[in-house]
């Protein structure tokens, strides 16, 4: 089998797999941009050119001084070469003023002059290259994130500037500056530190204030208290008693904490923008037939009685009855059923199913909340609310830590006063306790590990959607898998490919159809073949052509006129496709849903680590049992409805912490009920919304990788806590006894923070998993 020059996918044409790729290639050549093919460095297959989405763009267009402007989310960007190609091809068009792709968020912004170029042309040009575009309103989607990120970065810059300068001045103080110089240095320090703290401390003060307002305690409460007290007491000391000041500790504390906070937010924004793109790019419009004309309507505005036109490869947008056309539909996402179902006039279809073969017309019988899909969504929402009650480790630590520290400071104050010190001295000692116990290292211990882990997983195509997923992963005792699409690839795989002429003829015929079995047959062929030209398609049944005077038939047993005797010879649990040549030759091709690579090794690993793998499938017993036996899973459940899967996980969840891995719409309620959940990037949008973790790629090895990573992260976090606490255990007694000078406070604070950060860097290397 050849490789398509443009999309790098398997192709049975000589150079291109389809006319779309050929057109894209010539478009690129024509624009003198063919160095694109040398520039791209990634090896994964590219997406094929797509039909441009036809929709009303007007609400997304806004005017600027230079021209009209629109923002798009772009699907299919792999590396910088894609960014380069999109920008170049658009900016070569007359009328386009600027086209800029943000590679981090995979968003495109185009400014153009409406007299010379239309938005439809923009969408068509880019779609013709293989990238899907979806307009979005930047005000709704990203402005708050962007603003927050900029604010944090600004705070970080100010804290960095102030702490570096105050530190320089403090060196002079520590070196033993004489009275006047000391006073000068202190005044300059205060001049920098006071506005610096007031501005850069805002993220913490705001969050602490909000927590207190709702009678919670988070880490920001002790942090804010320590920073504010330190600054205020230092200022007071400087003005009234010419005593010691702790400005440098206060600003450095903020600087370190802001680094942690900024990194944390960056990872969050990145995974959120990927999630937004994933859900935003799902089809949101449907085509309806009205008075003989075709109209694109948003899914939300569909009404009962309207006629939907569903093209092959499209999802059905609403529940309904087929009124015209024959096809087969893939219900795997909704039911877990692995064999496509044949539909014909009068068949009932459900929203969320995929039409595979030929266009059908569907009369809508239910929309919105009445569809089976909406009922599943409802179930997902209910169970998601229950799960959100999980308290992150950081907050639990804060709850424990804050009262202890504040009591200690209070006791120090009372202790020294009882001991005969003045209130002023006793207060200073108490503040010193607050400064050294300020949970800088502890506040950094969790987020730095979380950030390092998330970015190392990110590089391997695993996106952590939920911040607490890692913590929950460490407690998992059982891993439940869905079958179709999760353990298997959800694609039909020919069991015994051959290379005789009969097989080649069958493949040449199959190349004319988009039925999953035909696609599986073509994929199994490793030679270039020429598809037959004159083929008659009977959607849902088979294909027919005449070759050298003989009739060739490919399709169901009935279609090929297979008699009962030959039927019985064959195993009926597998998907079959028959091929007849003339009167005599009759061949049966058998298919199975191929396992994901590594599925067996992953199960072996899980069993070895006592994770009790389990299969929960909506499919029939025979295929489920066959897969379970094949990969060595002892416990399996079949014919489960979405509700039954959800109930099953609820039941299991009472005794054990269960992790669910699933991809279909029917898995979504189970995913949101499970203690932790994972979904492949190829899964339905509903499953992706419900899952905590999304993994890309074909292999299932993401499951052991996240489990091992979570364990390693847990170890590193605990080590971080030990480090932070050991600094505190030295510093607190010293502070209580009144031996802490500003110098020592600064040393303890920065040393502990830096050790914790360095330790967290261990997570960036990630874990290795070998079967």
């Amino acid at each position: 089998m050849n490789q398509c020059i443009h999309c790098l996918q398997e192709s049975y044409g000589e150079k291109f797999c389809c006319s779309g790729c050929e057109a894209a290639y010539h478009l690129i050549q024509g624009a003198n941009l063919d160095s694109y093919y040398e520039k791209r460095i990634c090896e994964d297959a590219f997406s094929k050119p797509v039909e441009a989405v036809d929709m009303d763009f007007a609400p997304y267009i806004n005017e600027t001084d230079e021209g009209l402007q629109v923002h798009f989310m772009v699907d299919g960007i792999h590396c910088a070469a894609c960014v380069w190609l999109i920008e170049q091809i658009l900016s070569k068009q007359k009328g386009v003023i600027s086209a800029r792709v943000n590679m981090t968020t995979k968003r495109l912004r185009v400014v153009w002059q409406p007299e010379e170029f239309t938005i439809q042309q923009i969408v068509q040009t880019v779609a013709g290259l293989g990238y899907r575009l979806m307009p979005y309103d930047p005000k709704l989607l990203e402005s708050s994130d962007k603003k927050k990120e900029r604010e944090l970065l600004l705070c970080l810059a100010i804290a960095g500037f102030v702490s570096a300068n105050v530190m320089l001045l403090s060196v002079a103080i520590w070196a033993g500056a004489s009275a006047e110089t000391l006073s000068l240095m202190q005044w300059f320090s205060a001049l920098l530190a006071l506005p610096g703290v007031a501005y850069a401390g805002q993220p913490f003060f705001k969050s602490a204030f909000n927590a207190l307002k709702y009678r919670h305690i988070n880490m920001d409460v002790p942090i804010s208290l320590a920073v504010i007290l330190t600054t205020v007491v230092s200022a007071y000391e400087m003005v009234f008693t010419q005593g010691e000041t702790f400005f440098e500790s206060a600003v450095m504390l903020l600087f370190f904490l802001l680094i942690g906070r900024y990194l944390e937010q960056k990872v969050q924004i990145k995974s959120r923008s990927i999630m937004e793109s994933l859900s935003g790019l799902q089809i949101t419009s449907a085509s309806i037939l009205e008075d003989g004309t075709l109209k694109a309507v948003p899914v939300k505005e569909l009404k009962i009685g309207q006629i939907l036109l569903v093209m092959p490869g499209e999802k059905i947008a609403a529940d309904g009855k087929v009124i015209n056309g024959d096809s087969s539909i893939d219900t795997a996402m909704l039911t877990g059923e692995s064999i496509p179902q044949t539909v014909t006039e009068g068949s009932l279809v459900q929203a969320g199913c995929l039409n595979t073969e030929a266009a059908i017309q569907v009369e809508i019988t239910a929309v919105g909340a009445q569809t089976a899909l909406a009922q599943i969504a409802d179930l997902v929402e209910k169970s998601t609310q229950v799960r959100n009650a999980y308290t992150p480790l950081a907050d639990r630590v804060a709850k424990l830590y804050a009262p202890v520290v504040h009591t200690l400071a209070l006791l120090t104050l009372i202790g020294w006063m009882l001991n005969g010190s003045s209130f002023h001295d006793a207060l200073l000692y108490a503040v010193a306790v607050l400064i050294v116990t300020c949970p800088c290292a502890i506040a950094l211990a969790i987020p730095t590990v979380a950030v390092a882990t998330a970015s190392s997983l990110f590089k391997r195509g695993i996106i952590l959607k939920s911040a607490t997923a890692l913590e929950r992963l460490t407690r998992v005792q059982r891993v439940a898998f869905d079958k179709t699409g999760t353990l298997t690839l959800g694609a039909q795989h020919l069991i015994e490919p051959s290379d005789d002429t009969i097989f080649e003829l069958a493949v040449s015929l199959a190349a004319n159809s988009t039925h999953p079995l035909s696609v599986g047959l073509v994929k199994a062929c490793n030679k270039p073949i020429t598809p037959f030209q004159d083929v008659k398609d009977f959607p849902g049944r088979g294909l027919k052509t005449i070759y050298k005077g003989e009739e060739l038939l490919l399709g169901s047993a009935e279609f090929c006129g297979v008699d009962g005797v030959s039927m019985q010879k064959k195993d009926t649990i597998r998907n079959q496709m028959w091929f007849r040549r003339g009167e005599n030759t009759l061949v049966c091709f058998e298919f199975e849903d191929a396992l994901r690579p590594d599925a067996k090794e992953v199960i072996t690993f899980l069993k070895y680590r006592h994770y009790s793998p389990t299969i929960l499938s909506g499919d029939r017993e025979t295929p489920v049992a066959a897969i379970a036996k094949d990969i060595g899973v002892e416990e399996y459940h079949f014919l489960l409805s979405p509700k039954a899967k959800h109930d099953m996980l609820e039941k299991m969840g009472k005794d054990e912490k269960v992790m669910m891995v699933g991809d279909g719409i029917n898995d979504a309620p189970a995913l949101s009920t499970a203690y932790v959940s994972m979904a492949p990037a190829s899964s339905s949008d509903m499953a992706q919304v419900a899952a905590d973790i999304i993994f890309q790629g074909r292999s299932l090895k993401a499951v052991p990788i996240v489990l091992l990573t979570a364990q390693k992260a847990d170890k590193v976090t605990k080590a971080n806590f030990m480090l932070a606490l050991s600094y505190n255990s030295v510093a607190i007694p010293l502070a209580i006894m009144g031996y802490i000078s500003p110098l020592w406070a600064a040393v303890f604070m920065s040393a502990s923070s830096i050790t914790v950060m360095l330790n967290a860097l261990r997570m960036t290397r990630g874990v290795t998993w070998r079967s």
Partner: protein
Amino acid sequence: MEVLVYLIPIAIFMGLLGLGAFIWALKSGQFDDLDGAASRILFDDDPIEDEEEKKTDVQ
């Protein structure tokens, strides 16, 4: 040591200039796409040239 009275403000002023430059860069969006910026530098084609070409086309 009186010289410190001038030198420290000068040092702080210079630091503030740097901070100002950073804030300007931040506000003008230079920190919005760090991944893209890292890769863009590797492509040697000059987009300005293309734009000039286009403009002459338009004329």
